[in-house]
Every structure is written in structure tokens, then in C-alpha cells.
């Protein structure tokens, strides 16, 4: 059994995946988990809690900050903080310096600029699925591959573009391309370019010419990072813990609770 009083827990209920991080009194990561959010944020929060308890962490005895789209569905959280502040905290811990955080989330795409580890400004896509992880999921489904499979295909394709304005229009364009017999690789390429264009435009509004950090679940795609970097003409780094950046930030903020 751990000594829990000085632990800090961050729970990040995203629209696609739910993550949890537990830090010990020295700020070292004791525990991390990721599960699909599924249809219920409440269910995902409960599942994470049960898993933490199985690992010997008593959440009722520990400071918990919840973040993410489902942050209000975490009854054992002492506080909720938006994912913008948490991603900023988490990435600053992972990278150790200021940068611009890009998080292509299931629901929103966020671009957050850090100054001395604090949020200096942020932008999110407005009321539209284009340029979000949801868009990529829909498109991957249409091509009957998973997200990483989509990027793998894209890397071998080229020569096609689709509209970057609207996810619904883009989907019908994709269906049109499938109908016209274009290679899957080329269509995947067009989908990736569409999201890269959209995200780069959002980044451009926040100011170019500095280092970017790809946060969230899409950090795994080497190809996406490469294309973003080329488009932004700036380095795009990441970290094996990027998926947990929001949860990590929440856990760090939990440490500041009384």
C-alpha cells in the first residue's frame, strides 16, 4: 500500500480517450493509464478510479484534478481545470521550456503558446469538426483503417487535395474520390494534408517561427509530425508521454491544491 497523502492525481477525460496519472511526493510518475472513453464519461472516470484502486491508490485520500471534455464527470475530483491550462503545465514539464503546444483532440484542436511555463494565449477551432481528431476518425473509418494506418497510407500517397473547410463536405469529397477509383494512399494523403493545412493556419494565428510540441494521442504519428513541421517551417517535437500531457498537467496542478 502506498502512502497516499502527498500523491497528486490528474484525470483527463477526453472525448476519445480517458487518461490518468498519479505523481508521488517527488513528482515522479507512479502510475499511468489510458482507456477509451466510450459513450460515458462517468463510466470512464469510474473505470480509471477502480484501476487506480487496484494499484493501491486510494483516490478519496488524494488530491485529484480533473480535466478534459468530461472533467465534470469525475465525482472524486477536488477541482476541475480546463485542458488548455493542463496541457500547458504538462508539456512544460515534459519539454522543460516554452513552446507552442498543438493538441489535435477528438473534439477540439488547441494551439497554446507558453511563456515562462504559463499560458500566454490559445486558440481553438470554432464549432466545427474540420481540423480535429474527430475528422481524422471519420475519414479513417471511411477508408476502413485506424488512425495510424491512415498516416501510414498517406506517407505513400500524393497528388490529391480535398477541402479543408468542413468535415462533412470533406467526407463527401472522399467518397467521390473513392468512387472515381483513386488509390487509397492518395486519398489518405489528401486527408492528412487537409488537417495539416487547417492546424497550421491555427498555429499561424498564434505566431510562427518557434518550436511546436505535438501533444495528445496523435503524437505517435511520425508522419503527421514531419508534415506539420514542414508546413510550419519550425521544429515539431513530442514525447512518449505526450498522450498523458493533459493528465500530467492536472496532476501537477493537484499538487497546488490546499
Amino acid at each position, binding site marked *: 500500500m502506498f502512502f497516499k497523502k502527498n500523491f497528486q492525481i490528474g484525470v483527463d477525460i477526453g472525448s476519445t480517450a480517458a487518461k490518468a496519472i498519479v505523481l508521488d511526493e517527488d513528482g515522479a510518475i507512479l502510475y499511468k493509464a489510458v482507456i477509451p472513453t466510450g459513450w460515458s464519461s462517468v463510466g470512464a472516470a469510474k473505470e480509471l478510479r477502480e484501476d487506480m484502486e487496484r494499484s493501491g491508490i486510494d483516490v478519496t485520500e488524494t488530491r485529484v484534478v480533473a480535466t478534459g*471534455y468530461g472533467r465534470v464527470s469525475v465525482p472524486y475530483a477536488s477541482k476541475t481545470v*480546463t485542458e488548455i491550462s493542463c496541457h500547458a503545465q504538462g508539456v512544460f514539464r515534459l519539454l522543460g521550456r516554452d513552446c507552442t503546444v498543438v493538441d489535435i483532440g477528438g473534439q*477540439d484542436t488547441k494551439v497554446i503558446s507558453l511563456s515562462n511555463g504559463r*499560458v500566454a494565449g490559445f486558440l481553438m477551432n*470554432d464549432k466545427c469538426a474540420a481540423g480535429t481528431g474527430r475528422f481524422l476518425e471519420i475519414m479513417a473509418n471511411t477508408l476502413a483503417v485506424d488512425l495510424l494506418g491512415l498516416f501510414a497510407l498517406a506517407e505513400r500517397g500524393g497528388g490529391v487535395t480535398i477541402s479543408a473547410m468542413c468535415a462533412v463536405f470533406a467526407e463527401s469529397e472522399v467518397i467521390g474520390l473513392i468512387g472515381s477509383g483513386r488509390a487509397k494512399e492518395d486519398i489518405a494523403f489528401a486527408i492528412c494534408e487537409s488537417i495539416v493545412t487547417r492546424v497550421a493556419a491555427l498555429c499561424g494565428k498564434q505566431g510562427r517561427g518557434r518550436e511546436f510540441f505535438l501533444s495528445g494521442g496523435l503524437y505517435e504519428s511520425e508522419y503527421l509530425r514531419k508534415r506539420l513541421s514542414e508546413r510550419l517551417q519550425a521544429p515539431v517535437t513530442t514525447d512518449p508521454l505526450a498522450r498523458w500531457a493533459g493528465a500530467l498537467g492536472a496532476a501537477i496542478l493537484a499538487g497546488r491544491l490546499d
Partner: protein
Amino acid sequence: MHDIEALFEAMRNAIPAGPVKIKEAVDSGKKVVGCYCAFTPYEVIRAAGAIPVSLCSTSDKPIAAGEEHLPRNLCPLIKSSYGFALTDTCPYFHFCDMVIGETTCDGKKKMYELLDRLRPTHVMQLPQTYFGVDALNVWQAEIESLARKLETALGVTITEDDLSREIKRRNEERRVMEDFYELSKLNPPLLSGQELHLVNEFFKISFGDPRALDMIRELRTKLQENWEAGERRVSAGKQRIVVTGCPTGKSLEKVFSAIEENGGVIVAFENCGGIKPNYEMVNEALPPYEALAVKYLGIPCSCMSPNPKRLDLLETLVDEYKANGVVDIILQACHTYNVESFLVRERITAQGGKGVSYISVETDYSQNDVEQLSTRMGAFMEMIA
């Protein structure tokens, strides 16, 4: 302590009762002129013995009907205005004898061509600049021809004395609102932004009724007296926010609550329903038509190009109301406010080194982005704190 809630309640109840007042006026032989925009010179309509009313334009409900004639990717305010008229669900439109529109944007001026089929619509050709004497002359001529139009349509004569009288009256109304806005300069402000918005909405349906103005004066006095007696309606330590951007209204209250439920308090509305059309008076020393032209052409709407007055006004408001942040509300497909947001951000965040935080949100009248708005506003407040 005065009972402030009772006054707010009375105002809240007066808003849905507005159409009854207009129906009674119509039954007693009064003429009603429908307006959409802050550029409409109320003084001229009143000098013609008619009642200017603000037509419905801020609900999601009639948009689907509006889209039967209008393109979908048009701003919700235009689609809603037209949809209300088409479905005859705006009581003010129902009772109005004619409508006055202005060429404030492409969508509106083309919509008015269709609206004219439903109700006689007089469109004023608004210049796109407040600089130079040419624009001023054009606008003065437009105001004069509006007067001639009203005289013919309503069978009345508008004298300069009528105009001067109405100018004084409307200026007094503006002053009542200006004085009221001062309450939010204190720290913490004497009322929340949502309450302030209620007073703005109440003012909109006061139809120049002196009793309504007295209610606003009374509310001001009572809020002040309660404040002096130690009442704090807004807790200290909230982030002080100036709201700017597109016209506000019922459907945009979602943004106000997102601000105020996440640690902010709105201290000023720069928008059309707030300070923008009221902070400058009509000069009572000038000949009336000229005075009206100067005042109305000077409204710093984003349809003006360039529009430095809005940036100056915002800078003054941030300063006077000691704001920590500015929230710019952009309606989807409102190109002028959307493009101008770049300049607003630049000025607000820099402001000669005294810059404050800025965020713009693009939204429409539907309520399905309430969660996203809450996240944005929450993050904005966390950023300022």
C-alpha cells in the same frame, strides 16, 4: 437594504410584455416603425409621431424558415431577422407599418430586398466611412430623405422643432444608460454582466416611456445605496471582462454565462445593444439634420473602413472599467467583425504596454456549443488569473 431582485424581476417581466404595449399603441392609432440596427435615427421616427421598435433578430427558432430563401452560410442575425418576418412570429414586425434598414453589410442589404415584399422596407444607404465631409453629406441627405419618406408614408410633417425636441429626449435616454453603466466601474461591479444585459434589453423595449427610464434610474440609486450599506452582489476577485463584437441578444447569453460561471464578470458591453451607440450624444447646438448625421455616422461599427474609433473606444473602456480581458463575440459569417478581430487583438494585447488578454469566439444562435464555450472561457479566465 432595498429589494433589488424585485426591480430586476419587474424588468424581466416587462420584456415579454413589450408587444402588448405596442399593440395598445397601435390600437390607439399610433404608427410603428421597425428597426434592426443602431444606425437608425430613432429621433426622426419619433419626430414623425411614430414609435421605433427593435425587431426580433436573435433567436435560433426562425432560422430554418429563413434558410428557405436565404443561403445557409449567412450570419444568423440576418437569417433570424428574415425568418421571423417570414413566419410572422415577431410581434413587433407584425405590428409595424414599415421597416427601416441600412446597407451595413452585403447580407443585410440583399435580405432587405426580399423583406420589402413582406413589409415596405426603406433602406438607408450608409457610407462605409466616417471620415470626410462627402460621407457626412451623403448620410445627412439619407436622413433627410428618410424624413420625407416617413412624412409621405405616415401622412405627417416633421419640423426642425420636432427633431430638436426628440434629439433632447433621446440624449436624455442615452445619459440614463451612460450613468447606469458607471456602476460597473466600481470594484467589484455593482451588478453582474448578465444583470447588466437584462437592463440593456429592458431599455430596448422601453419605447421612450419615462416610467421605464425612471425604473432604470431607481435601480441605479438603489444599487448604489445598497453598495454603500455594504452589499456586494458580485464577489471580489473576479476577472473583469469587456465584451465586444457582433450585436448581442438572447441567444448569446450562453457566452455571458460561460464568462460569469468560470470566474469572470462582464463590466461593459461595447456592442450595439450597449455602449457603442450610446456613448456619443447628438450635438444639440448643431442644426438637427447635421447633428444627427454626425452622431449616427460616427458609430464605430465594423462595417466602417477603417474603423479606428472602435479600437479607441475599447482601449478607453478597458482603462476606465479596469478590465483584465476582452471577449470578442463573432457571429458565424460576419466577415467585418471577424476580419477586424485581428486588429482588435493586436491593439488590446499591446495597448502601449498596458495590454490585457483577448479572446475571440465564433458562434451562432444554436445552443449546442455551450460546453465548448465554457471550456474556452474557463481557460481564458485561468490564463488571466
